[in-house]
């Protein structure tokens, strides 16, 4: 089969990348100034004895290489350590955050991809028409807006209509049990604004790149051949242009999807979405190294894995790529 080799090599490369990321991740936090104990030391009445006890408890008195080996061993067993701040297992905390982040960011990002590629195709097809100008200029405008500005504008403009904070109505269920349907409806409403912010900030790039990629493809000789063969415009676009034009987009899509897991720190912060982005921001403030380390790890792994998927998709889309 074509490229079994290619697939295996790509997977091997991805695993190696992840291992290197883990290692860098570990030592990064060991060279940063300050640790949990020095942070706790700001607590009044903390005695040197207490500090020492804490250092020993967290294993910070051991040599770095030993800490590294312990870290690797525990990681293999799915243990990402205990959060300094909340004393709960990091893996469990991050899992809960991920569960909240993924639906919101996925809807925003996938929406942006669909809207962006769709408008890009239409723009290129109706090149230089009024709708092309409107669509392209809108895309540039939204692409240029900083996330926080767009988020705040949406919050101000639509704040009266839609919930602006959190993932669920905190008072729901206070006056009696809430049905599952009602709960999902509530979450759905809360999800609209952050997902929309994300969609609007991301889609412009897809529109612009898809449009230029389409225009480039439309100038290819094989598109002229397709016209000469008597194919209708619609059929030419569908069969001979879109797939070829999608090739440059594949990488961009993969990189964007990689961030679905990483969350969108700004968006989560603006709309108080209890996801992984917020959690990481909080962890930075609290110097919660295990939490940060876990978060970074998940980020790195997801980016590597999704890049791998992009490579494989690219391989499927373009027969010219071989071993």
């Amino acid at each position, binding site marked *: 089969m074509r490229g079994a080799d290619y697939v295996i090599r790509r997977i091997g490369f991805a695993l190696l990348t992840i291992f290197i990321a883990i290692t860098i991740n570990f030592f990064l936090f060991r060279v940063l100034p300050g640790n949990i104990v020095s942070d706790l030391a700001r607590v009044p009445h903390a005695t040197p004895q207490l500090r020492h006890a804490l250092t020993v408890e967290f294993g910070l008195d051991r040599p770095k290489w030993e800490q590294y080996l312990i870290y690797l061993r525990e990681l293999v067993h799915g243990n990402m350590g205990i959060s300094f701040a909340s004393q709960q297992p990091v893996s469990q905390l991050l899992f809960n955050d991920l569960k909240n982040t993924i639906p919101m960011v996925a809807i925003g990002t996938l929406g942006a991809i669909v809207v962006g590629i769709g408008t890009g195709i239409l723009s290129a097809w109706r090149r230089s028409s009024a709708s092309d100008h409107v669509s392209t200029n809108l895309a540039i405008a939204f692409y240029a807006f900083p996330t926080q500005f767009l988020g705040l504008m949406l919050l101000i403009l639509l704040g009266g209509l839609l919930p602006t904070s959190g993932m669920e109505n905190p008072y729901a269920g206070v006056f009696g049990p809430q049905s599952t349907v009602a709960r999902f409806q509530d979450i759905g409403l809360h999800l609209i604004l952050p997902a929309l912010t994300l969609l609007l900030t991301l889609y412009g790039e897809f529109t612009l790149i898809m449009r230029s990629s389409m225009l480039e493809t439309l100038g*290819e*000789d*094989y598109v*002229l*051949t*397709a*016209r*000469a*063969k*008597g*194919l*209708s415009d619609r*059929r030419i676009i569908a*069969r*001979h242009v879109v*797939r*070829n034009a999608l*090739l440059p987009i594949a990488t961009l899509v993969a990189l964007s999807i990689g961030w679905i897991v990483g969350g969108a720190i700004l968006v989560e912060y603006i709309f108080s979405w209890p996801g992984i982005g917020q959690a990481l921001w909080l962890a930075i403030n609290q110097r919660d190294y295990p939490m940060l380390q876990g978060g970074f790890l998940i980020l790195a792994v997801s980016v590597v894995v999704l890049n791998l998927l992009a490579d494989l998709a690219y391989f499927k*889309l*373009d*027969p*010219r790529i071989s071993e």
Partner: protein
Amino acid sequence: MSLLEVRDLNVWFSLPGGGELHAVQGVSFDLGPGERFGLVGESGCGKTTSILAMMGLLPPNASVSGEVRLAGTDILAGGEDSVRPHRWTDLAMVFQGAMNALNPVRNVIGQIAEPIMLHGSVSMAAEGGGASMAAEGGGASMAAGGGGAGRGGRGSAAAARKRAGELLELVGIPAAAGARFPHEFSGGMRQRAAIAMALACEPKVLLADEPTTALDVMVQAQITDLLVRLCEEFGLALVLVTHDLPVVAQVCQRAAVMYAGEIVETGTTDSLFHSTRHPYTRLLFAATPDLYADDDVMSIPGAPPRLDEPVTGCPFLPRCDSVVDRCATERPLLRVVASANGAGEAGEAVHAAACHRDDAGGTP
């Protein structure tokens, strides 16, 4: 009656900075069934533009006037809607540099089968005893293909692919190789595949745009032979666009030489080669390397005139080696200089040239 009549074809391109470029200026020619006609000239003289205009394939910034009559009907009269039904079914095209004429992400056989699925194929429609073109042409392999292929004009995907496989065999590529992608083909194979694709709907006229350019000489010879063989076998008429005079001599019965958007000399290949009338044609021959001659290859100094400005007098004047007084003031028109049967009427074998020297009676 001629199969294809091109009458006073003009093409203007509107330029981005305003202004227009008159790329094709009053081109007319006739093509009989099964006839092979060459359009010769240097780059930018309007030969490719002419044949793209004939199929209505020019970009939106081009405006076209004139008629392209196919069996008496002007196919350009109704714009895109009137020309599309004729594409590939009546007029098919083999593109310049087949490298890029095939979509790189689709396999070859699918691209050949595509127009068959869209338009059907004469052989497939005629199955069960119709008068198929292939049967008339006596093409054994093609007729066999028609017999075995589909149930109706618009065949199923499987029938179309089967037919596409037969076409590949016809141009000398194993049908099984059709499952491969264009980048896995050599240049010659790609050109063969492009020819197979052009034959898919059994057109009456094949427009071939520099089909042998960018191929090495051996492959060039194979491709020209293939084109001639197919035309003869299936009674296909061919318009061959090329800058390569020897190829025209090998393939075509008649030819026209284009310069700066217009035809400056036309006639049978024989008369063009042996009783050349126009200085440009003569210089063009002198610029062709000759294996057996000792003479150096000459080049024609200068460049063609700009086509976005009106030209007074003869467009070839600045580069001509035999200028007379009238050349600077009066534009020479295409005039019959000799015809096979001695009559001056426009006919198949007419030899015409656009040069003042001919009016004076001198041989340039």
